[in-house]
């Protein structure tokens, strides 16, 4: 076997194409969302407990920040997931189009985050 072939296992040197990054970030955001489920359930429980506790939650800046990050991760996972559903239907599988929809996922996520931030603060 030829031993001199280049093997790039240095993760910082491997430059993945955008659709691969979309897939990887979909995975990372998914794991983060899984870890956030107890926070989500606690928030829902507090918001429904009583008017006083609803107000505490609504006025808490920590809650706002947590809600922001939760919704940001959800928005990304949502749009990237929607793209995968469309790929499953064989929609947008051509390389050029797949790259375009990858940018669309980033654009839609960024827009959602900006709107969310403007609404929260």
């Amino acid at each position, binding site marked *: 076997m030829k031993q001199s072939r280049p093997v790039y296992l240095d993760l910082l040197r491997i430059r993945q194409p955008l659709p691969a990054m979309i897939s990887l970030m979909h*995975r990372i955001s*998914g*794991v983060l*969302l*899984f870890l956030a*489920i*107890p926070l989500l*359930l606690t928030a*829902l*429980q507090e*918001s*429904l*407990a*009583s*008017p006083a506790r*609803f*107000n505490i939650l609504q006025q808490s800046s920590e809650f706002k920040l947590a809600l922001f990050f939760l919704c940001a991760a*959800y928005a990304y996972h*949502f749009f990237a*997931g*929607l793209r995968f*559903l469309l790929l*499953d239907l064989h929609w947008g599988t051509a390389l050029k189009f797949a790259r375009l929809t990858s940018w669309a996922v980033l654009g839609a996520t960024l827009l959602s985050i900006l709107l969310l931030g403007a609404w929260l603060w």
Partner: protein
Amino acid sequence: MVKRAITGAHYGVRDWLAQRLSAVIMLVYSIALLAYVVTHQPMDYTLWHGLFQHDVVRFFTLLFALSLFVHTWVGVRDVLMDYVHATGLRLALQAATIAALVIYTMWTISLLWGAR
């Protein structure tokens, strides 16, 4: 012959389909809830609490939660299969994930129907 580990893959299209079906359910619920919140500003306790007093809303919220937990299971299991190669550790992490999701399911039911 294919070697099968207890925490390995033998579930093909069924889990794949469950992942997609649960995604579509969550997609529809998310848009509906977002539309409600956006069209009912400013949101206060009376509106928010009133929304979850309807059994239809509770049912669809539970359906969303169950979809989320099924979706989470398939996703986390895939991640564990890809990155955790020690069978014992993977089994422990998968068991912990299932236990957490069962607890979340009971928690969701009790918080939706428990509080009045």
